[in-house]
């Protein structure tokens, strides 16, 4: 995609789901929504949500666990269907976000252009939520940030044909709709609910982790950024909303750090591990959490705290780039 195609894609991916939601509301109003539509919505929401959370985020961006090739392809394809960008680009932006979180260079910080007052705050939140996607000049240099993903042919294939996966994310629920109801109208409403409406809700939840998750909520760890734990977003974000925990221990396969911090993605990874389908699952025990908590407390925390950014993966020593020695 060149700059213009990128912009068109972003604009369509912002507007079409919004129109889809409007159409769905009209249908709801006229009681033209069947149980099949809601089931399809739920199925697609889970596929796309796990694709982004378990696949793009924990498996690819942070290498929190390893899995088999078919599952790696499945999770990545599911993540691509969510429509948040090709895996290579998503991972590059995300790794850069961690490197300089809430500091200059962060692709999506609500503090990127700090202006005073409520208007400034809302502007920052909008930028972190969706505004940053419209920045034509933004590029996170995938060669520097994710040579590991680029070396994987499957990941390159999915990245290159990303738009087809997004399209499949709308066609597939349409096919399901037809299978469930046997009517073309059922196919249409299936595509609407499982495609566009799902696209809208699933992606705004992810965007909310980037905006709200750096603004409102509790901070357990005084990390050198503004990340927060947002309990009410945890369930529907598949655990992603324990965002302060995540910035504290980015490689941890579980973002929930207590038994009561529900993290569906971590449960899925744990389940796969029991089945022997996930290995090298990275866990941070309580003792290590406490140690780091004390260390950060001393530095003060927050976006003005001193932090030494990690080098991008391409610039790290070979052993660190391929192994799992770099636990954070």
């Amino acid at each position, binding site marked *: *995609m*060149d700059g213009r195609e990128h912009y068109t894609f972003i604009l369509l991916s912002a507007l079409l789901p919004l129109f889809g939601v409007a159409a769905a509301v009209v249908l709801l109003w006229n009681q033209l929504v069947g149980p099949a539509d809601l089931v399809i919505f739920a199925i697609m929401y889970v596929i796309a949500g796990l694709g982004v959370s378990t696949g793009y985020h924990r498996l690819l961006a942070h290498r929190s666990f390893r899995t088999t090739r078919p599952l790696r392809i499945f999770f990545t394809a599911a993540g691509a269907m969510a429509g948040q960008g*090709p895996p*290579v*680009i998503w991972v*590059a932006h995300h790794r850069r976000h961690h490197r300089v979180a809430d500091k200059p260079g962060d692709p999506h910080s609500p503090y990127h252009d700090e202006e005073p007052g409520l208007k400034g705050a809302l502007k920052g939140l909008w930028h972190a939520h969706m505004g940053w996607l419209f920045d034509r000049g933004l*590029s*996170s*240099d*995938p*060669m*520097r940030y994710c*040579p590991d993903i*680029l*070396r994987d*042919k499957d990941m*390159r294939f999915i*990245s*290159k044909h990303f738009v087809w996966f997004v399209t499949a994310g709308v066609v597939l629920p349409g096919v399901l709709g037809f299978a469930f109801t046997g009517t073309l109208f059922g196919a249409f409403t299936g595509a609407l609910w499982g495609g566009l409406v799902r696209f809208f809700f699933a992606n705004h939840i992810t965007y909310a982790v980037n905006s709200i998750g750096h603004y409102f909520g509790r901070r357990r760890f005084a990390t050198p950024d503004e990340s927060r734990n947002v309990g009410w977003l945890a369930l529907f974000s598949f655990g992603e909303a324990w965002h302060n925990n995540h910035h504290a221990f980015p490689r941890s396969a579980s973002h929930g750090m207590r038994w009561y911090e529900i993290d569906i993605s971590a449960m899925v990874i744990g389940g796969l591990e029991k089945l022997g389908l996930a290995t090298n699952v990275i866990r941070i025990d309580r003792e290590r959490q406490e140690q780091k908590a004390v260390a950060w407390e001393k530095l003060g925390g927050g976006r003005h705290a001193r932090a030494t950014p990690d080098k991008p*993966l*391409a*610039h790290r020593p070979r052993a660190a*780039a391929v192994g799992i020695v770099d636990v954070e």
Partner: protein
Amino acid sequence: MITIETLSDLIRREMRGKLPADVQIDETTRLDELGLSSLQVSEIVFTLEDEHGVEFDPAKAADAQTLGDLLALTNEVLEVG
């Protein structure tokens, strides 16, 4: 040993006919003047790796700015290997 022709074939394949007509492909051509996205540049670099069974130092690959840089990088690794 690969040549500029190998590289330009790879670029044409990647661009699928969208290469600007007036662009001259030689060793001094800069990657960014071809209108390639970051994804396309990476695709070219890592296809080179695959086709020749080598691994570049990713930091050096990311620093390559011209086609000449990319050729030199590839041939250097090929000679060692």
